[in-house]
């Protein structure tokens, strides 16, 4: 019985030691945390994708030309 307890303790101790030595990035991430990560990056990627298709506002070209001096460069 005492051996069983000692054995269980040593297993638990070994687990804690190994956990403590592993870098934070290697530790297990809770499932809900992973789902949040996935949801965030998916939403972020969708917004990036929309931004890649964004076009300059209509009429910008005309507004820029109106602001450029009328005198030709030549």
């Amino acid at each position, binding site marked *: 019985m005492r051996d069983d307890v000692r054995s269980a303790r040593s297993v638990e101790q070994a687990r804690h030691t190994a956990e403590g030595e592993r870098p934070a990035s290697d530790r297990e991430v809770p499932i809900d*945390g992973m789902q*949040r*990560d996935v949801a*965030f990056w998916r*939403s*972020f990627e969708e*917004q*990036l994708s929309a*931004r*890649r298709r*964004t*076009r*300059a*506002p209509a009429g*910008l*070209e005309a*507004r*820029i*030309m109106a*602001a*450029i*001096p*009328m005198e*030709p*460069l*030549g």
Partner: protein
Amino acid sequence: VSTSEPELLVDQDDTDQRIIQRVLAGDRDEFTVLITRYSDPLYRHALCMTGSPDVAEDILQLSFIKAYQHLAEVRGRFDAWVFRIVANGCKDWLKNIRRSHLSYDEDDQPSGYATPDEELDRTELRSDLDVALSSLPASLREAFVMKHVEGRSYEEMADLLGTTVGALKMRVHRAREALQALLEEKYA
């Protein structure tokens, strides 16, 4: 064969260099072709860097005016040259808006807003993307946007920004880490 398609106004085969020669020879209106050709990617860059459509439009307008006035100085590719003007305009704007807040703090005068980002939030409803990008330092934001929005290669980015591929890979990596940290903070 008749077609209902509108006639193409921009001849894609007409090189930038030929257009520049015509503008320099006195044909001011030809400059419109260059604006049409590059305003979309340049606007996207300015929008990602500033998070504000109004500011992005102002930066584009000032950049194209500057480009027109200094057109005779173009050496090499026009698109790379005008990109640098816009990119510098964005970085100057970010510096100025931060400096204006620092000066308020130094003078102990109430600015009305706690941070430049809050100032933007007050005037415009910003997307999560813009809020996240605004949390990054300008150099990381610039590298992340050029890589993940504009889809440029590291070699092209290095050429445009005058830095090394290694430095840019590090900036993009740090930007991703910062965005991940932001996520963890948001959901902690």
